[in-house]
């Protein structure tokens, strides 16, 4: 339910970025949303569409890359995707592994066209 605020933050950043590049038209937006970021991608997409409706950004394309939860083992350095909360290292069995990604919420790229 916090997705509306997050969508609004995304648009603020996008508008600031496009303002830096006069004469371009924004076509699409690429986001990276981690599996454990606490954000629901469907809800985020819905909120973004609501916010751009009837504005110059209406019809903006959206691509959301859902990034998996990845952990690193401090003992053997193996990096692995966590599936079903299984955080033990598949290599050596170490239980205390560390989160390296999967909690991100990032604007990855903008797709633009010279107007």
């Amino acid at each position, binding site marked *: *339910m*916090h997705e509306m*605020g*997050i969508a609004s*933050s*995304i648009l*603020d*950043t996008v508008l600031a*970025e496009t303002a830096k*590049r006069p004469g371009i038209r924004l*076509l699409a937006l*690429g*986001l990276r949303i981690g599996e*454990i*970021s*606490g*954000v629901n991608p469907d809800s985020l997409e819905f909120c973004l569409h609501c916010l751009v409706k009837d504005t110059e950004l209406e019809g903006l394309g959206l691509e959301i890359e859902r990034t998996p939860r990845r952990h690193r083992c401090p003992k053997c350095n193996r990096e692995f995707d966590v599936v079903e*909360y299984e*955080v033990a290292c598949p290599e050596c069995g170490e*239980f*205390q*592994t560390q*989160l390296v990604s999967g*909690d*991100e*919420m*990032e*604007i*990855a*790229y*903008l*797709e*633009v*066209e*010279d107007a």
Partner: protein
Amino acid sequence: MSRVSVKRKVLRENDRIAEELRARFRARNVLTLNLISSPGAGKTSLLEQTLRRFPAGRKTAVLTGDIETDNDAKRLEPFGFPVKQITTGGSCHLDAQMVERGLSSLGAEDVDVLFIENIGNLVCPASFDLGEACKIVVLSVAEGDDKPLKYPATFVRSALVVINKTDLLPYVSFDMSRARDNAKRVHPGVDIIEVSCTTGQGIDEWLRWIEKRLAAARKTAPAPKD
């Protein structure tokens, strides 16, 4: 058509303010704890017990968030520590800017421990850094023992799970060992403390946990208290 790489954090404005707050807390040797739970798990009750038994000579203050009403602040004021209610007027979580504003009206930054009581919600508060030293999740035995599996984003980010209302264990189907296993499964390094804010059981252990964190934070923080 071309692709422009941006690589900007979505919540960069929140994160920028949170980092400023974190630096401010560190410079003043304030241990800031962000309390998260579903509604009714007992965050305010835990704070009542905490303030009632807060170690003599230690200073503390509370920023308490709610969507509406200042009921929580009224419950916490009688203990004589500075308390400020943050009313979000609909927002389901606190963000760093609300904390920054709350701090200026609290007017009490020279404390050992600052408690931030987040909005009762196990989802949204997880995404917003408030500049805290750590997040703490409060879970009550009146809820399901699978809560850690259902809300991993909150449990992964929390340093401690406080399991409250243990006095109700005989009357509910909550399986304590399953709850502990689920919390460890989602976050192997997490600490767990069982308390009852009704009987006071476990509160001493919680206060010792805070003291330990305080000592650890001060060992790494070079700034002396003025």
